[in-house]
């Protein structure tokens, strides 16, 4: 992780899905096309089977779930009954869990991105004492396993009276060492110092320069940081598990786990769990497929340096 130049960083050949200029390399024999596409289809089936299964399972009654073939629909089509049960069970607690996840991931992602951008920009565009120390510290933070800090953070937050509140999950979500790292590299490579100086001469304050000039130029990196942070928070399990005991504060991961763990005693929870899993997977799967192109670059912009 030396600080070589990252001249490749801002290059974005935004021509998705075109197999580059290599296509003209040869006509490509149809045999190899069939072989390669065949392999990709088999792999795609592997990735899709669990999702397909849950779509089928969510449409079944508990009797059908155990009595009929798992890969095909059952005798009664109970999808809407099941989804209705998911949404109304326990006074609509599933909706609440979903809203909590949106709150944690949305607010956490936005603020974390803004803070990472400000910090990364400051390190890239100013020379000041302690600059290298900060960068080294944060770089170490990227490598610290997230679960290693969760336990001591719980002890700390308990003493501050923050454990088992919205804050206990939200505050750690506001920090993204990886985002900071990426923003610093990106600002270094794209925000032109002479532009900053010109803005200064025009009388713009330092913070205004960052907000009007810096943020705008850094937007592509910010999108990547934002998406990573959202997925990270949404998928987090250990931190909320350690911090929260009040079910009303649960994110969706914890809530579904709660239902799933009751299935062995109360079989009707199978319907709730499969329905709940389906409802939470669909928005995520759609989001991943739609946003997939924004991940391009992402980590490798930092990796070019490695």
């Amino acid at each position: 992780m030396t600080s070589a130049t990252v001249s490749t960083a801002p290059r974005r050949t935004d021509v998705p899905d075109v197999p580059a200029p290599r296509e003209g390399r040869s006509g490509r024999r149809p045999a190899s096309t069939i072989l390669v596409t065949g392999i990709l289809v088999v792999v795609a089936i592997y990735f899709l089977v669990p999702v397909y299964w849950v779509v089928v399972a969510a449409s079944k009654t508990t009797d059908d779930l155990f009595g009929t073939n798992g890969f095909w629909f059952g005798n009664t089509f109970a999808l809407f009954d099941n989804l209705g049960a998911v949404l109304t069970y326990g006074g609509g607690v599933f909706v609440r869990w979903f809203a909590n996840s949106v709150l944690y991931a949305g607010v956490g992602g936005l603020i974390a991105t803004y803070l990472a951008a400000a910090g990364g920009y400051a390190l890239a565009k100013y020379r000041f004492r302690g600059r290298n120390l900060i960068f080294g510290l944060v770089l170490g933070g990227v490598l610290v396993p997230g679960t290693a800090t969760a336990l001591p953070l719980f002890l700390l937050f308990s003493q501050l009276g923050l454990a088992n509140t919205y804050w206990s999950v939200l505050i750690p979500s506001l920090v993204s060492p990886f985002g900071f790292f990426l923003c610093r590299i990106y600002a270094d490579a794209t925000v032109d110092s002479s532009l900053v100086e010109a803005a200064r001469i025009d009388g713009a304050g330092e913070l205004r320069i960052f907000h009007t000039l810096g943020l705008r130029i850094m937007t592509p990196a910010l999108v990547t940081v934002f998406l990573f942070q959202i997925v990270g928070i949404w998928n987090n399990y250990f931190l909320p598990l350690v911090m929260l005991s009040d079910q009303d504060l649960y994110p969706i991961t914890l809530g579904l786990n709660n239902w799933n763990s009751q299935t062995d005693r109360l079989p009707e929870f199978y319907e709730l769990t499969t329905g709940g899993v389906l409802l939470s997977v669909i928005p995520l799967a759609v989001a991943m497929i739609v946003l997939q192109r924004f991940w391009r670059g992402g980590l490798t912009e930092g990796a070019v340096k490695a």
Partner: protein
Amino acid sequence: MTTQTTTTPTGAAPGTRVAGRPPKKRSTAVDRAPWILVGPFLALFLLTFVLPIIVAIGQSFTTVTRAGLFGEQGVTTGFAWFENYRIALEDGNFVASIWRMLLFGVVQVPVMIVAATVLALLLESASARWPGFFRATFFMPYGIPGVIATILWSFLYVPGLSPIIDLTETLFGFTPDFLGAGTVLWSIANIVTWTYAGYNMLIIVAQLKAIPPEMYEAARVDGAGPWRTAWSIQLPLIRPALVLTTVFSIIGTLQLFAEPQLLMTVSPAIDSQFTPNLSAYTTAFAYNDYNVAAAQSVLIALVAFALSFLFLRLTNRSSR
């Protein structure tokens, strides 16, 4: 591009346009600005990363003695030297869980990285049809939380519910046991690979796209076929992405928690100390021994650090 930032006097010349700000004040504004910008991030970073690590290290060297049956006659804390670490390391189950994760990592990480690389190369080859569709499909599981992925797969593992077990029974007449003592580790490996292979693939694809077209052109002129191009041009040039994804996978392996914790309810082969993290969690919340749990957390982080460092050293040396 770096020199002008701190030299302030240049801006003082067109004094009218500086909107009445004397040069002296501007210089302090430039001095102050980075701290205002980095301050909020730094404060939160110190609170949520640095302080917990200090607390954990402090806790791991502390011993708490409770007087009386329930500690009602006062609690005394003292410096314990390496006592907590001794307890953690003498706990055979905890040490076994670290070895289990090493075994897991030695198999799962290479399988996943090789799979991700092959998929990336296939997707980027001219032979692939509909690369956009496949890329999106392979990447999709990354957005599914580990907890939900585990619930999904556990349905496919549990006898009576799993259509896969039904299928192998009717087709081949044998009943696979996905949750047995010898197999459950690899059933977990399957869930982890399913979740992250597409994500790693996308990172590698991004690096493949950064290879300048002239390189392919040159290889073609030299008469290199697709195999030769992949081996001599693409693989060496995506090295940084491979190193990065491997390091993150190693760190992730040692953190494994959600998958075994959820499968515990359906698989008797998983105990409460199956992975190092599960061990630390159990020590803290089932035995309420935060000090030994802190020592375990520190040990997990140290092993993750050591392995990442070792791997980086190895790859650095072989590239020279």
